[in-house]
């Protein structure tokens, strides 16, 4: 059991080291990278099945006594996020075979280190280890961002690294202040501390601010479009599935444990969530290429997830968990379709593409249509179930303007998805010259699989709904997790 908890962190790190030492071979990197990530997916599935029964697997790494050891623990929310990020990493690695990005020999090791960091961040029970694991995620991402041969990549990377360095500095300051006030950084021992201790609440707020920057919450979001637009297609898919999600995970975990879902501050979260939704979706309206539209929507979807946190009820947190899972999958599919168009036609600017690709790229068009419908929230896709859950929870416990924003932002999302559909796929056969070869299965397969998944999660939503409700319940009352990590 303990090996299962450690494997998602340890296995990718070991494989990354082996790949860097082994002779240069793209085939070896593909086999080991995809194989080890597949094993992590299996481990995460087993862990999820265990945590859904209410069990919290804990490992005191190295056998040190509690309080000294590095503690890794997973509850249902952690295991669900772990399974989600591992699956996106797996499909992202397969997709990178199609885009050819994995021919760079450092690509696969960097992605593996990044996924190890994500696994560590979602399973650690110590604030300082969270800081370290977040850095383990970020440092490979700095290199991956500059890998694409794009003109703007250095400028984008400067922005990205600077913003994240500032956020990490704030994070460290928050941890220092929290340690000064309470004398510990173990999350289990810090449970509820910010709810009844004003200095600790201030220090924890600094940590939340740093996590807000990393998860691109309005008004701290403006770095995201500038830096994500310079990365390669597969790197963008991985970033969208892993990076801001670590920030979101930390926001949920810290709010649930440190603040104990304190109802006095919930209005702040709700205002931030609605602003994030509205600003994100409106900035997509003016964008003129596929990727900027999708990154702007990423900001808006983060707002949706935060609505659940702002409600902090079992229904709200469960809806947010469901939303998070389905939106990460759908977003990855959309980025994959946009990246495939870019790889095949050399551009994703709508005016240069001129539409009509449905005549040539039938399967890409199917994948786009399916995932775009899920992003908007049209039945019978998973997006519909997610938004229905969220709207129901908001109507039950939130102010009226939250419900209004949930519905109105969906309508505006439809507008920009239609713009992409018309600009890329619909219409007469395109003026662009057709690529010599047909799109490879590794380029088209992953987005099709994800779009099919979005449909399946909508038609057969029961298992994920049950899992996310359990996860929401554990977030609303984290006492089982707290007891497990302090034992």
């Amino acid at each position, binding site marked *: 059991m303990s090996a299962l908890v450690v494997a998602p962190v340890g296995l990718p790190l070991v494989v990354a080291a082996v790949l860097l030492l082994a002779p240069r071979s793209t085939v070896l990197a593909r086999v080991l990278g995809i194989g080890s990530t597949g094993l992590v997916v299996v481990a995460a599935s087993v862990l999820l099945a265990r945590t859904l029964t209410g069990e919290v697997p804990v490992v005191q790494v190295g056998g040190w006594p509690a309080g000294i050891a590095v503690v890794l623990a997973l509850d249902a929310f952690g295991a669900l996020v772990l399974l989600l990020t591992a699956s996106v990493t797996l499909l992202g690695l397969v997709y990178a075979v199609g885009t050819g990005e994995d021919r760079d020999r450092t690509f696969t090791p960097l992605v593996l280190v990044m996924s190890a960091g994500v696994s560590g961040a979602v399973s650690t029970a110590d604030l300082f280890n969270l800081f*370290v694991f977040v850095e383990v995620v970020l440092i490979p991402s700095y290199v991956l961002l500059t890998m694409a041969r794009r003109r703007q990549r250095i400028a984008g990377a400067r922005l990205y690294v600077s913003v994240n360095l500032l956020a990490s500095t704030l994070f460290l300051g928050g941890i*220092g202040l929290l340690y000064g006030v309470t004398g510990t950084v173990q999350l289990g021992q810090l449970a509820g501390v910010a709810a009844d201790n004003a200095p600790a609440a201030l220090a924890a707020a600094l940590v939340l601010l740093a996590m807000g920057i990393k998860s691109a919450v309005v008004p701290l979001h403006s770095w995201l479009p500038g830096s994500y637009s310079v990365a390669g297609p597969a790197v963008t898919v991985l970033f969208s599935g892993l990076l801001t999600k670590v920030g979101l995970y930390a926001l949920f975990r810290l709010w649930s444990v440190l603040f104990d879902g304190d109802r006095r501050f919930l209005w702040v979260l709700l205002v931030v969530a609605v602003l994030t939704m509205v600003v994100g979706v409106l900035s997509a309206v003016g964008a003129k290429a596929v990727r900027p539209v999708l990154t702007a929507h990423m900001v808006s979807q983060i707002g949706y997830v935060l609505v659940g946190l702002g409600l902090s009820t079992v229904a709200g947190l469960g809806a947010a968990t469901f939303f998070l899972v389905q939106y990460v999958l759908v977003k990855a599919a959309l980025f994959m379709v946009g990246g495939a168009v870019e790889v095949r036609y050399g551009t994703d600017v709508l005016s240069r593409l001129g539409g009509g690709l449905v005549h040539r790229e039938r399967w890409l068009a199917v994948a786009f249509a399916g995932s775009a419908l899920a992003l908007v929230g049209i039945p019978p896709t998973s997006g519909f179930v997610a938004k229905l859950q969220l709207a129901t929870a908001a109507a039950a416990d939130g102010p009226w303007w939250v419900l209004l924003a949930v519905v109105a932002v969906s309508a505006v999302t439809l507008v920009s998805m239609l713009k992409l559909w018309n600009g890329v796929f619909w219409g007469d056969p395109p003026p662009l010259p057709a690529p010599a070869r047909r799109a490879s299965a590794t380029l088209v397969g992953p987005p099709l699989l994800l779009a099919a998944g979005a449909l399946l999660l909508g038609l057969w939503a029961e298992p994920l709904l049950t899992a996310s409700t359990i996860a929401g319940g554990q977030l609303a009352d984290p006492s089982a997790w707290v007891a497990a990590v302090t034992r």
Partner: protein
Amino acid sequence: MTAAVAVGVLVAGGAYLVLQRGLLRVVLGFVLLGHAMVVLVLAAGGDRGGFALPGNGAGAPADPLPQAFVLTAVVIAFAVTVYLLGLLRAGAPDPDADPDDDARGPS
């Protein structure tokens, strides 16, 4: 008290530099901010003096945990700063730099 003043001065200087135009100054600003956080975390361990070793005869030993934190954080911040300096030199010149900023060198 000394630590509080030191953190204040470092944060003030760092914030001033981060808000400047040239990327080199921004990087130096991050270095100052990083040092400020180091002092802050060390101060969070309390003002017991002495080395973090038991039985060194100089009263209660200092809290070792913040020192371990700081060691880790310094390494990470150093690595990221060096990478940022690499990005400063790589590729196109920094469009935001002052025209008379000669720190970039010939490019």
